[in-house]
């Protein structure tokens, strides 16, 4: 990296132009990625009259938060005109228990799959891994039937259950791959000292697990908050998560389209995951790559 040998090339005009080109291209791409978000924010702060006369990136003639207020509290979604706040809280009520439970179970599973291997456990792990990849279309119909039989169809509890079940493969994968890197000798030594299954987990693995808990919680939170398929299939009416409500708002065909309200609602829907990304981006990226490359 810091080998001076490589960098003894003279700083000619050609090198300078090359650097300029690279930076230019990088900045151009920054705009490409940021522009949709800038457009969303600008549009959400305009009045509809302003939107009809201006363009995507024109500066608002007057800034107004009306669209935000409408989106949050009074926009019409299906037959209800209470904005997206109800659905926002639905998503919170789904995410908190589903993330907590799936993460805890995943931690315990990962502990067994890495430190208490038994005959056939590797095969079981591989079979469980396949659960990360199945197209959920292949389980939707039986799940709808089952939730109906359990009296959970179109309820928040049903949706939480579904998210826990289909999150387990990923959470187990995260913890298993993390615990594999912790030396077995530590566990062996503790066993010789007479520590049992739970004590070893509690005293040896849990204290060093913070990073993987953060990765796993962020991954699960993002997945579940952003889920649309389960939400649209297994919930209805006032029990829908925010993604479904946003889709209904954007694709409603009644009345005049209020693009500013659509944009404000979309930003509200994006805020929690975006905040997590900004605060803990490092862990978010680690989850992305751990969940895919190490698959």
């Amino acid at each position, binding site marked *: 990296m810091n080998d001076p040998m490589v960098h003894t090339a003279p700083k000619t005009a050609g090198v300078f132009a090359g650097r300029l080109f690279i930076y230019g291209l990088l900045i151009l791409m920054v705009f490409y990625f940021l522009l949709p978000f800038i457009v969303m924010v600008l549009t959400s702060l305009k009045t509809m009259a302003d939107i009809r006369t201006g363009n995507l990136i024109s500066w608002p003639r007057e800034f107004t938060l009306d669209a935000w207020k409408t989106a949050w509290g009074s926009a019409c979604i299906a037959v209800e005109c209470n904005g997206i706040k109800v659905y926002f809280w639905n998503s919170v009520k789904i995410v908190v228990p589903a993330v907590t439970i799936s993460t805890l179970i995943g931690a315990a599973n990962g502990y067994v799959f890495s430190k208490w291997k038994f005959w056939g456990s590797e095969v079981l792990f591989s079979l469980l891994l396949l659960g990360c990849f199945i197209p959920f279309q292949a389980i939707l119909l039986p799940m709808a039937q089952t939730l109906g039989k359990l009296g959970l169809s179109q309820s928040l509890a049903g949706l939480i259950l579904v998210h826990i079940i289909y999150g387990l493969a990923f959470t187990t994968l995260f913890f298993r791959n993390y615990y594999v890197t912790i030396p077995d000798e530590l566990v062996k030594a503790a066993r010789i000292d007479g520590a049992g299954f739970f004590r070893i987990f509690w005293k040896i693995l849990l204290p060093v697990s913070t990073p993987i808990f953060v990765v796993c919680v962020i991954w699960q939170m993002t997945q579940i908050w952003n889920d649309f398929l389960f939400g649209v*299939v297994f919930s209805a009416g006032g029990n829908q998560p925010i993604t479904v409500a946003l889709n209904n708002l954007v694709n409603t065909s009644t009345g005049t389209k209020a693009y500013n309200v659509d944009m404000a609602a979309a930003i509200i829907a994006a805020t929690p995951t975006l905040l997590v990304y900004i605060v803990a981006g490092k862990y978010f990226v680690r989850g992305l790559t751990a969940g895919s490359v190490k698959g």
Partner: protein
Amino acid sequence: MTSITHTTSVPKRSLFDHIENLLPKIVLAPTLVAGLVFVYGFILWTAVLSFTKSRLLPKYEFVGLYQYLKLFTNDRWWVASKNLLIFGSLFVVICILLGLLLAILLDQRIRIEGAIRTIYLYPMALSFIVTGTAWKWILNPSLGFERLIRQLGFENFSFDWLVNSDMSIYTVVIAGVWQSSGFVMALFLAGLRGIDDTIIKAAQVDGASLPRIYWRIIIPSLRPVFFSAVIILSHIAIKSFDLVMVLTRGGPGYSSDLPATFMYAFAFTRSRLAFGAASAMVMFGAVMAVIIPYLYSELRVKRNE
């Protein structure tokens, strides 16, 4: 396989020890049962449904491959499959090219690399529904991009892909690429950082130009990353549902349908359960055809290590 289980020296086996030995399996049991029932069992159940003639409710009267024959003679299914081919190949190729380009550019000792990387990757934190909402507005045929270009002086500029049945599937590509190329960049950047410097330095000392070093040495050594990226992106493409639902709802007509939206339409809004199940099984087969070789190679590599 570790041998932890054999290192204990318990003099006599009590009931307590027995339970202690079973604990790992007890802890794992709920997940394994859930996996067996809700993943494998349900896939089997869907397969069974696809051999019946269930419509609104499951009815277990078997009709063999009837639904599959119906599916493969259904025009809408072929549109959905063709769209998946168009969307999938463009999505995979563009994401990889863009991701690789961005990773290489970012790997040139860029001063504000961290900030730029954060911006390239933030769309991955968004829901496809949010991304779709944003692009639906940008691509709006009268007030969006078209208006912007017209106001810049190109009065006759027209951009109506969102409502043009020949072009609607390409709007899904535009939004999908925007969402996922940053992620591919992250994969390639991790790959680039993992390359052993010494070969590159040797080539530099020999006077090889930077583009030549990339073309001849660096890019070929990223082959495993290409492989992973293709698999992950194809997998995302086959499962794509949200983006189409919010952007075009599969329309105009069913011109931008994908298998996932096709399955949803027939199984849940048109009440043709068995037919929907058949399409789900075909999707399942497609995903497995992509994933199983991948998992196999991943696991084999690990075993060889």
